[in-house]
Each structure stands twice: as structure tokens, then as C-alpha cells.
């Protein structure tokens, strides 16, 4: 949402429109809960049309010109959710069970309509006698939509071992 900063009235609306730290955290927690429950259809609606869901290989890459594990726009997110829910992907049917917590939030930037947070995610995966852990540094750019709700404009999941080997991952991070 763009806001002209030149009148008192709009200055006031700036304050009411800025996503607060608490709102952003509640939003992120709600997403984590959705993902652990494989509730991907509502998850697709948590994004701006131009939002990017990125899981990089290199910690400091310029993502668009680098190889990533995931570099999804809205179309790819939809295709991914469809695939994971289809029942025909042997790596996600049945899926691994996951339990994740997200915490250690720090505000990186904030303006009249958006907030950027860093955080940490601890995810445990269980399937076929394996227990695996996928800790990650998180970065979220969250904006306020016209209807007042919050949306992800960017989410970057940098796995602790991003540049080392992974195992097949049949769910979302």
C-alpha cells in the first residue's frame, strides 16, 4: 500500500497501517502451523502476487541468478502445493511428519506498510525410522494488503547446511 506522507491525516494512517512486530509474529506462527498440518490451500493465499518463496543453496547469493533449492513465484507455489497434495508424488504420499517452531525474531526494517524480520526455524522431520533436523535462518518481508490482512512478499529459508547435502524433502519449509 502506498501512502503519501504529506498530510497529518495520512501520517496517522501510516501508524495504523504498519504491521506491528506482534502481528507479524502471529502471522508467521499461523503459517508454521499450516505447514505442519499440510494445509497448503490457505497457505497459497498468504502471499502477494509477486511474492517470492526462496530456499537458497548459497548463503549470500544474488538469488535470481543463482541456483536455489526453491525459487517460487505464485505460479510455482500453486504447482508445488498441487503436487504435494495430489497423492501421486511418492515422496509426499505419505509425507514425512514435521514439527517446527519459529522464534528468535529481530526486526530488520520497518516502514509505513511493511516489516522485515529475521528469525530462526527448528524443524524436525520423521519418516521411515529416520529423524532429521533442518534448522534454518529465516527472513520475512511482510506487507499489509488492501483489506488489512498481512501477506508475505518474500520468505527466505536459509538451511544451516544450505550449501551441503540434503535429503529429499517432500513438504514445505
Amino acid at each position, binding site marked *: 500500500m502506498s501512502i503519501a506522507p504529506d498530510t497529518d491525516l495520512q501520517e496517522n494512517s501510516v501508524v495504523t497501517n504498519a504491521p506491528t512486530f506482534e502481528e507479524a509474529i502471529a502471522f508467521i506462527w499461523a503459517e508454521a502451523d499450516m505447514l505442519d498440518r499440510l494445509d497448503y490451500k490457505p497457505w497459497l493465499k498468504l502471499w502477494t502476487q509477486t511474492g517470492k518463496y526462496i530456499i537458497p543453496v548459497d548463503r549470500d547469493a544474488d538469488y535470481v541468478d543463482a541456483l536455489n533449492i526453491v525459487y517460487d513465484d505464485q505460479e510455482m507455489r500453486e504447482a508445488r502445493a498441487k503436487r504435494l497434495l495430489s497423492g501421486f508424488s511418492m515422496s509426499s504420499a505419505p509425507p514425512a511428519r514435521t514439527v517446527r517452531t519459529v522464534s528468535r525474531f529481530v526486526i530488520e526494517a520497518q516502514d509505513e506498510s511493511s516489516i522485515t524480520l529475521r528469525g530462526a526455524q527448528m524443524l524436525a522431520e520423521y519418516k521411515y525410522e529416520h529423524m532429521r533436523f533442518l534448522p534454518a535462518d529465516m527472513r520475512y518481508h511482510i506487507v499489509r494488503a488492501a483489506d488489512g490482512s498481512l501477506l508475505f512478499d518474500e520468505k527466505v529459508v536459509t538451511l544451516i547446511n544450505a550449501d551441503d*547435502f*540434503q535429503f529429499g524433502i517432500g513438504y514445505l519449509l
Partner: protein
Amino acid sequence: MNITDFAALVQDDRVHTALYKDPAIFEEEMDRIFNNTWVWVAHASDVPAKNTFKTSWVGRQPVIVTRDRENKVHVLLNRCRHRAASVCEKKKGKASVFVCPYHGWSYDVDGKLRKVPHAKGYEEAFDTAQFPLISLRVEEYNGLIFATFKQDIEPLADFLGSAKKWIDLFMKQGAGFGVRTLGEHKFRFPGNWKIQLENTTDAYHFPIVHKTFLDSLDAETENVFDVLGQGGWVEDLGNGHSVMVMIPDLIDLEDNLDAPIPDRFADLAKELAAEGYPDDQVRRIVRAVGGSGFNLNLFPNVACSMAFFRVLRPVAVDETEITHVAIGMDGGPAAGNRARLRLHEHFQGPMGFGTPDDAEGWERVQRGARAGDDLWIMLNRGVDAPDGVAEAGHNAGDVSAETGMRAAYQMWKRMMSA
């Protein structure tokens, strides 16, 4: 069954399950195969300039691939000659010297021991020339760098034999520019390395395992990936190598340049035209971006597959690491390479639309192989004559035939019983 009678474990149309799960066989394979043949270690663009390096593996042994001041490539065991510390733990980079971090012995990029600190403590006769980093024999074919511990092995070109023609076709993806590596995905699966070796020329699984990948494509592209329905074939190229042609129309990327540009590349074509590339070059680049229509399996550890290198590293009898190396144009348009990266991410890697399903299949093979101690893995599919056009005199079958696997296991048998 006598475990050292390896030949008895491989028949013409089946191999014994012990090949997937016996740790003693695995140890023998590392010695008799991986220490005894040409093993892929890098692409030339991984060491693009003098004093650049990349770390890699030959079987279980860590190596450093370096390029010296004369542009010569060396493959060195990553092990200090003093007390065995690894001398390099970076994936790639620039170095004109490798200094062991433990006691400071320093090595030139060709492996020579340059200096030892406090040399006074050694006897008079101590000769640094006696303690270089161990060098493997190295040869390169069309950018593919291979190394071997076996100094008297046949030249690489002879070992590759009929596969060379396919390597040359594969490198046409440079679209007139060079070919360069763009990045890599690494992942492991809890299963034996030969399970992935088999998979590279297994078109039979494609429509089943990769149904959700196919469902994610537009109709035109989905047709392109109808790999069982286009008259492709699998061909034994000798020495364990094989090629699986899935999309015969995409064997030679310099053919059919007048064909209409597929919808999925329309935006890319526009972008390239806007950047000033002439029409014929736009067509050539666009066709190259989609990749080749075949998988070339080079025994024992690398495949040239559509638009990437697929490298396997045996870690343990039931653990294998796979690296998918995305490749693109060296000096070509950024938009073209970006398109290739997005295509690569779509199918490959730990969260691609294809790889995790492959990995799940391979893991299921290893898990299932625990059942039945005297059962066989069947490789008897497709002894018919090919629909496509294999080279005269070559053993070949239709695209879903298990000809490539039979070729690899015959080489396995030859090397394990030599």
C-alpha cells in the same frame, strides 16, 4: 554362494540382491572399480583460471582438482604428506599454494612440497621432493575432467569410445558459447550407488514416478516429456556406458532451428531479441536452453543428463550422495542461463518436482532389498530391436528397455572379476 565369486552374482538379465547390501562387496567395488578406472572429478569451468581449485572425490578418497600457472589440471589427494591432515576444506576457490593448517607444510598447486617450517629439525638428507601431494593421472574430454589411480590405464578417449559422440552432442547446449557450471544441488539417499546408476537410463519409471512433474507442465511441454511415446531407444556404448534417447527430436540441438519456438520459451525469445540477438541466434539459444533429449551414462560415476551433470558418490553400501550440476552458457545471455536455472530448480534437487520422488523410489529399493536373502534384481526388460536408430552393431533396445543397466552390470562383472 562364495562372496568372492563376483561373476556369479551377475547374470545376463539379473543381478543378485547382495550387490545392494553386502558391505564386503562395497569395499571390493571401491578398490576394483573406483580405484581402477577413469572417474569424473570436475568440469573444466569449475577450475576456470590458473590457481583455481575445486575439491572432489575419487571413490571414497577426497581430492583437490587444481589448475596450475601453465593451465595444466592436476588432481591431488587431499591429504598432507606429514601426518595426513586435509590441506583444503573449501569447495572451490583460488589458491596459488596450499598450506597445511596443522604444522604448516606448504604445497604448490601441482602438488610439489614447497617448504616445511623449521626445516632444521629434519635430518640432512630430508628431501622435499619425496613428499609431494599424491597426484592422480588426469585427462580431459570436451570439458569433462577425469582422474584415475591406475597409471597404466588406457587413454580416456579410448575408455569413452562410442560415448564421445554423445558427449559432443551434449555440449551443443553451449549454443555457440562455452559450457559452464552454474551451481549444484547435493543430496543423499539411504541406498546403494548402483540403484542411482540404473536410474539414469530407466525411462520405464518416468511416467509413473514423475506424474506430478508432468502434471505441472503446459500441454505442449508435457508432450515433449512423453518419453515412452516418441520412438526413443537405449544403447549399450561399451565399457559400461550407455545412452537413453528420450526425445529423438532433441538429439542434435543444431538441427530444426526453423521449428516454431515453443510457448514456454516465447518470453525468453522476446527478451533475447530485445537484447539485440539476431533471429537465428535466438533460435539456437532457445533450443539449447531446453537441454538435450538424452541421458548419457558414463560408468561408473557421472551422467550427462538433459541439461546437467549427475554425479554419484558412493558413501557406504547403503548411502549415496548425488550432485546435480546445472550447466549453462559461458558468456551467453544472462536471461538464457536464468531460464535454465529455473528449469533445473523445477525438476532437480532436494525439493524439485522430480528428484525427491526418484530418491524415495531408490530408498524403497534399498528397504525392500532387506527382504529375501537369495533373490535377484530383474533387468530383463526390452530385448526387442529398437524403434529408434542405434548405431549399427550396437546392442540396443526400445527406450524403456533395461539395456543400459545390463551394460553397466556387465562392466561391473568384468572389473570385479578381473
